C-alpha cells in the first residue's frame, strides 16, 4: 500500500500526475483511489491530490500523518502539507518558488528556511530542480512529469511500468517529450 500526496499550486498539472498513477495501478493490477481538486483552487490556489495504491482501498483521501511520500511541485506547499507525512515518510520537493498573494502584496514574507525546516521533519527529503530539467526537455510545462519520474523511482516502481502508464495517459503528440521528462525525473539525484 502506498499513500501518496501530490501538492502544488493550481495550474501546475497535479491532475496529470495523479492520472498517470491511476493507470499505473490498472497496469499492475492493484486497487487504487485518487482524490482530485477541481474548481476554485485551480485558479492559483494551494492544491492537493491524494493517491492511494494497494489492496482494497477504502477512503479516497490519505489520512493526516499517514502519507508514505509527499511530492511537492512547489517548496512552500511542501511545508504547508508536511503534517500529512508518516514518521519515516519521504518527500520529493521541486525547488521552484511561486509567490502567494500575501507575499506579492508585501503583507508576508516567503519563508527562506524551507529546506532546513523540511529536513528537520523529514531527513529523507529529496530536492529536484524540475524547472531546469524541464527546460532541458525543451518545455517548462513537463516539470510535473519530471516530478512524477522521481516519485516512481522513490516508490520502487518499475521503470517500464511507469513508462507504460504515461503512454496510457498522455496524448500521442506529446508522448516523446513526456517520456524524456519521466526519464530525467527517474534518474534525478
Amino acid at each position, binding site marked *: 500500500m502506498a499513500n501518496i500526496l501530490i501538492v502544488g*499550486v*493550481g*495550474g501546475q498539472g497535479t491532475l496529470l500526475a*495523479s*492520472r498517470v498513477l*491511476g*493507470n499505473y*495501478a*490498472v497496469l499492475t493490477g492493484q*486497487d*487504487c*483511489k*485518487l*482524490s*482530485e*481538486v*477541481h*474548481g*476554485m*483552487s*485551480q*485558479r*492559483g*490556489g*494551494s492544491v492537493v491530490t491524494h493517491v492511494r495504491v494497494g489492496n482494497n*482501498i*477504502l*477512503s*479516497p*483521501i490519505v*489520512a*493526516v*500523518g*499517514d502519507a508514505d511520500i509527499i511530492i511537492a511541485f512547489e517548496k*512552500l*506547499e511542501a*511545508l*504547508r*502539507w*508536511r*503534517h*500529512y507525512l508518516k514518521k519515516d515518510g519521504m518527500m520529493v520537493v521541486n525547488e521552484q518558488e*511561486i*509567490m*502567494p*498573494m*500575501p*507575499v*506579492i*502584496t*508585501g*503583507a*508576508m*514574507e*516567503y*519563508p527562506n528556511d524551507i529546506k532546513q525546516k523540511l529536513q528537520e521533519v523529514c531527513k529523507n527529503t529529496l530536492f529536484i530542480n524540475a524547472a531546469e530539467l524541464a*527546460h532541458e526537455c525543451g518545455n*517548462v510545462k513537463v516539470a510535473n512529469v519530471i516530478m512524477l519520474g522521481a516519485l516512481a523511482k522513490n516508490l520502487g516502481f518499475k521503470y517500464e511500468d511507469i513508462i507504460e502508464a504515461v503512454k496510457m495517459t498522455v496524448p500521442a503528440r506529446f508522448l516523446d517529450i513526456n517520456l524524456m521528462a519521466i526519464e530525467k525525473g527517474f534518474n534525478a539525484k
Partner: protein
Amino acid sequence: MKKILLGNEAIARGAYEAGVKVSTAYPGTPSTEITEAIAKYNEIYAEWSPNEKVALEVAIGASVAGARSIVCMKHVGVNVAADPLFTLAYTGVNGGLVLVVADDPGMHSSQNEQDSRYYAIANSIPMLEPSDSGEAKEFTKLAFEMSEKYDTPVMLRSTTRVSHSQSFVELEERNEVGVKPYIKDITKYAMMPAMAVGRHKVVEERIKKLAVDANSMSINKITYKSTKIGIICSGVVAKYAEEALPDASILKFGMVNPLPMEMIKEFAGKVEKLYVIEELEPIFETQIKAQGIECIGKEIFSIQGEFSVALIKNKMLGEPIPVADTTLPVRPPVMCPGCPHRSVFYVLKKLKLMVTADIGCYTLGAGQPLNAVDTVVCMGASIGMCHGVDKALGREQSKKTVAVIGDSTFVHSGITGVVDAVYNQGSSTIIILDNSTTGMTGHQPNPATGRTIRDQVTHQLDLEKVVRACGVNSVQTVDAYDMVAVEKAIKEELEKDEVSVIIARKPCVLLTKEIKTPYYIDNNKCKKCGMCMKIGCPAIMMTKDKVFSIKADQCVGCGVCLQMCKFDAIKLGGKN
C-alpha cells in the same frame, strides 16, 4: 471491463447504461464533469441549460414524453430548481427522472454548505447516496429503475469526495430502454388545486411504501463485526468509518431518504453503543432520536466541514491529529495572469465604488490587493442588490455603486434583475464582465458564447440587444483590458439618472490560449513606485529590496501592467 473513473464520470456511465435519452444541467462544482462526460455519449442528447430551473423543466418534459432523463447540478442549484421540483414530486414521472445533486461539505468551491438531503425530505422523494465510483454507477442505474417503479423523481446525492475521486468501475452495456408511450392525463400532469389534492395523497402513500421497502433494499446494508460499537452512516463517510474503526459494526444507508427504520431498530438493539456519523446536518440522527433510540452524533461531530479517517479516530478514540503550520503565508486562489477581470476591478477600486458582485472568477476581485467587492450572495444577486442599495439610499449612493456580473451568470439569473431595475425606475449601473465563457467551473459554453456543449455553432445571445430590450437605453461596450476606456465608461454611466449597462468584453486567456510575447521590467527605468504591484498579477514579483520583475513563464502579455507604469519601465520581450 474494469476502468478507473471519476465519481462524476461513473454517474455519467450509469446514465448511459440505463438508456438515458436526455441530459440537462447548469455547471457547478463539484457536479460539472457528469454532464461533460455524458456529452461524449452520442446516444444521449445533452445540453447546458441557462440555469438549473430550466434544466429541470427540460428533463421533466422529456420524462413526461416517455424518455429517461437526468439533470445534474451542485447543491445551491437545487434552490434555483426547487420550484419545479416540489411539484414534480406530485406529478411523478413517465420515463425515469433522476436529479443528481453534488454537495460540497467543507466548501471547496461554494458559497454555502447546505445539505441537500433536506430537499428529499421536504419533497417526500427518495434519495440515494453512493460512496465511491462503483456505487455511483450502480446507484444511478438503480435510481432510474426506482423512479419508474415508484413513479417518482429520484435524487442521487454525491459529495465532493465522491464526485472528484477516482476508483474502479465495472463497465456494462447500454440497455436501450426506448421511450414509453405518452398518455394524456391531466389528473397526473396538470397540477391545479383539484388535481393536486389527489396527487398529494399519492405522494404520501408513495413515501410510506418506500419507507417500508427500504428495510429490504440491498443498498441499505448491515455489516456485523464487534457489537461494542455500531455506526450508522452513508456515502464516503462509510469508507472513512470502516477504515478508522475496522472492528465496528456498520449500518450503511444506500438510500438516505426515507430511512429503513426497522433495520435501524434491529441494529440499535444489537450494538452496545450507537454512533451516527454524518457530514453536515444531523438528519439521520434527528430521525433516529425521534424514534426514542439512543445514539451519539452531533454531540461529538461537527455540523461544519468534511470528515476523514483521522477526524473519526480523533473523535472516537481520542487519537491526536497532526496539525498544519498556520504561520505560513496562505495561498488563496487568484485571478490568472492576463485575466480580463483584473483591470476592471482595479478601476472599481480606484474609483472607491461600492460593488455588489456576483459569483464567478470575478469573485476573486474580493481578495487582496484589489479588495474591490462589497457583496456576494448567490448567482444573479448583484443586480437586484444594486437596485436595493439605490432604493434604500437614493441617488447620492447609487452614483457610487455598481453591480458586477459575469456573462454566464447574467444569462443564468441576471436578466430579470435588469427588468426589475428598469421597470421600477432605478438608476443602477451594471457591468457585465463578458469573458465569453463560464470560467470558474472550467470553461463551459453558454448561450452568450454561441456554442453548444458539443461545440456546435448556434445562435449567440446578443447581450447588448437583451439589455436594450429590457429597456436600458444607455449601453456601452468596452475592451476590458483598456483601463482608460473602462474608467471613462463607468464615470459616464454613474452620472446618468437611469439604468445603464457597460459590457466589458475580452475572452478568458485560458480559453484563447494565445501566446503573446511576455513583458519585462527594465530596472534602469524602474523608479520602484510599486504601481505595477497594485493590480495583483501573480506574474509580477518584488524582492525584499524592491527589485521588480515579471516572470516570463507566467506573463501572457496582456499589457494591463503597462498601463500602470508611468515611467515606461515595462517593456515587451521578456525572457526566462
